[in-house]
């Protein structure tokens, strides 16, 4: 149970980050997911990413809806506040939390049911509002927690464990996000930690809404022959177009990349993402081009992965548009918020 945390005594030999913290100290309570569930691997990548960023646990806020995927916020960084809300409505909780305190780092973990069925309205509008957060969809094509019904991301022709075949077209979160003007859109695979970790780090540092669609197989209900979201199928059909290396503020870029293929993008806080284009004729900064590329690959049943689109001109981030004070709203002294008696007396004139 999530309040029984494993002892966090750092074993001397364990590697520590700049805060002197070990990976263990970024863990959460014990997972109650099925052995082999893709979501647990994503949890591991989140732990790795946070540790790598030397994130202060109290600076992180974990948000989720309902589902096996949504449960995972309890399984990492137990030193952070978590809010496991209701099904499909996490984006509104995130928008409100972020409005109250723009300084913290927000990570939302959701599933394809939570985000694309009941929650698609809120997801769409969180993207439009450009809430500054990392939003992970642990996408397995089914409703795991309710025992394997097809979700809205199930592909046409995919077979359910019980045998029925899905015939409705899938909603692709990546194409959707590109259409809605998201400024950070990525796709990855729970089994590819090397690719996923830097994406998570970049997403956490991006100033605005960062979406990562993580293919995360459900071993219990959607990992069989005939499923297009199984480990085997995913491994065979995913295809990295552009890898991202994350370079924290501190380090200066050691490796040098062959020109043209690599593209450094500086993030809000000064850190950098180096985009390595595995496919030369791919441009992650051109939204419409990216859309085409992804769309055409999808037609061939290929999931393009990597940092698909990024736009660091954070002009539309919520607080920028709102001209919110730099200090978190929840920290502003009451004196500055309440106009006081004199102002009220003056105001009365307006109503006579």
């Amino acid at each position: 149970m999530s309040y029984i945390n494993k002892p966090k005594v750092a074993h001397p030999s364990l590697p520590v980050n700049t805060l002197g913290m070990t990976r263990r100290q970024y863990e959460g309570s014990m997972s109650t997911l099925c052995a082999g569930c893709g979501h647990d691997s994503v949890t591991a990548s989140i732990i790795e990413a946070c540790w790598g960023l030397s994130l202060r646990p109290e600076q992180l806020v974990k948000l989720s809806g309902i589902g096996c995927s949504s449960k995972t916020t309890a399984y990492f960084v137990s030193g952070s506040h978590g809010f496991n809300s209701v099904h499909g409505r996490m984006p509104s909780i995130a928008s409100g939390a972020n409005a109250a305190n723009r300084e913290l780092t927000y990570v939302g973990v959701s599933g394809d049911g939570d985000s694309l069925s009941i929650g698609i309205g809120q997801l769409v509008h969180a993207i439009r509002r450009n809430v500054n957060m990392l939003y992970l969809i642990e996408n397995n094509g089914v409703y795991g927690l309710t025992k394997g019904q097809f979700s809205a991301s199930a592909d046409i022709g995919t077979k359910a464990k019980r045998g029925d075949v899905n015939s409705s077209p899938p909603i692709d979160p990546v194409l959707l996000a590109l259409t809605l003007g998201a400024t950070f859109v990525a796709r990855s695979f729970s089994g590819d930690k090397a690719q996923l970790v830097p994406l998570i780090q970049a997403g956490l540092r991006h100033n605005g809404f960062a979406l990562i669609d993580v293919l995360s197989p459900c071993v219990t209900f959607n990992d069989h022959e005939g499923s297009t979201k199984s480990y085997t199928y995913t491994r065979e059909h995913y295809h990295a177009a552009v890898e991202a290396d994350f370079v924290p503020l501190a380090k200066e870029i050691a490796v040098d990349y062959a020109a043209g293929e690599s593209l450094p993008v500086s993030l809000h806080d000064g850190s950098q993402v180096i985009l390595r284009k595995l496919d030369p004729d791919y441009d992650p900064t051109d939204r419409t081009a990216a859309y085409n590329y992804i769309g055409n690959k999808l037609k061939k049943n290929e999931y393009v992965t990597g940092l698909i689109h990024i736009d660091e001109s954070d002009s539309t981030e919520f607080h920028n548009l709102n001209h919110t004070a730099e200090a978190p709203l929840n920290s502003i002294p009451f004196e500055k918020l309440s106009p006081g008696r004199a102002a009220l007396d003056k105001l009365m004139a307006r109503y006579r």
Partner: protein
Amino acid sequence: MPGLIANANRVNDFVVKFANVNGTGSASANSLVMKAIFRMGVPVTGKNYFPSNIQGLPTWYEIRVTRDAYAARASQVDIMVAMNAETYSRDVRELNSGGYLIYDSTWPRSGLLQRGDITVIAVPLAKLVNENFDGVRNRILLKNIAYAGVLAALIDVDLDVISGLLTESYGKKPKLLDSNTKALRLGYDYVKQHLTSPLPLRVEHMNKTRGHIMIDGNTAAGLGCVYAGATVGAWYPITPSTSLMDAFKGFCERFRVDPNTGERNFAVLQAEDELAAIGMVLGASWNGARAFTPTSGPGISLMNEFIGLAYYAEVPCVIFDVQRVGPSTGMPTRTQQSDIILCAYASHGDTRHVLLFPANPEECFYLAVQAFDIAERLQTPVFVLSDLDIGMNDWMCPDLQWDDAYRPDRGKILSQEELAGLEKFYRYVDRDDDAITYRTLPGTSPKGAFFTRGSGHNQYGGYTEDSAEYQVVLDRLKRKFVSAPKYLPKPVMLGKGSSEVGIVSLGSCDGAIREALDVLGRQKIDVDYLRVKSFPFNNDVEVFLKTHATIFVVEQNRDAQFRSLLTLETAVEKSKLNSILSYSGLPMSAEPIVNEIRAKLAEAPRLAAVPRKL
């Protein structure tokens, strides 16, 4: 003029009703008249009956000139300014016997004299205006000002006061000032030249409005949120709550924007719907901001799931329900008090919620502030149940007061230092034995970290499916609710307290009840009156119910929802509770209260000496 006699000497005590077409700018003319009377020191109330569309449908505005400062709708009309051909006949019908009908005689109308008991006053308004002004839109607008002038002359409104008001509104636009003044005079002078004026129904200077303002409840509530230090407002537009957020935003733009940097100490989120709006409020409150959402019935229905989460996970939040006529979309521009039961028990499972019942705009301001203190103290949703009558109509209220010594009660929030002092922090352990536990805010310290969830949890904040652990938390929540009254505003008692008959009511019924009490008093029927300001009920409510033999519960819905709440949540035997219901959608008037009480008492003469005849 038969009317004259009937209305002899009705100084500062009569009702003027304007019948217009909406979207023609009549509102400003009507409030011009009202404001002028108010400034003459004469108490007034204004009730706006507008359609749920934007332009072209009938709309009415009712000004009650009431030297006794009654806040309720009067159930009669003495002067009808009939500017809408479409509703003309029903407007004539509605006029009180002996009343006056003012109409635009530019095009003489048939059937005018279908009533012999009223006085018809013909003024060729369109003609006057068209001779003096150009432009279609312009003429429409100025015709409104012209009838204001007519009325001013007829009921003797001080012309200087009106001119003063015009100068205030158009001071910076001399052209507009001229045309408006001219239009006003056109009507005014026409009366002076062609008609006997003033009418016996007229206004005279008084001194009963000093220290008072005319304000609507949504504006007052929005202002209250600013004064309470709310920084996050989330909403989805819905009549009649929209103007509450407009007001909050407006006041924030005035008081919360740094003049140098332009930085804003507030965030207003226009959500995609009410589910998102309440979610944003929960997210913000959970994260330490004072946050609120204004809505109306349909919004409450949509918020049900999140409200249950807030109750169970103990996240403070403030919800303004500006009630309108239900069920469903109902009549969005009419008033009712029909969300009481839904709000009291909103969401599935065992849930119950704190409700506040403002009776007028003044209380909207004060209760808005208290709502945040209560929500944070009890860590639970607090509903402020206003309604369209309070929220959107102009009421005369005493000036709003503010004590600069006020500091918000943020409730039990542990600081980093306090956490450091603890051996270990558990979110839902009842350390103080008051059923209220300690919370921490994100960003404080890893030691204060906890996991908030709507799924089964034990007092340590951990996930549980264990019966005993689950019940520990659920039982405490019940104890917390039982203890709530001590943090809530007490009811207001009126009367000797010794009468056998009592009225119990809430919210916007207040004006009608106070007026009814006067009428009954003059008839030697004295009745005590308890106005409940909050739920769960204070012990004073129990006492009042116990100490009065016959009780009338006055409320504005079909199903006696407030009576139901009293039945369930006090010891009273419901047989004692007589309902007086009004659910027409119009603000309540004193008449039905007087009549039903008289009728009931007539059945049981023991209770009070009541003349048999009405």
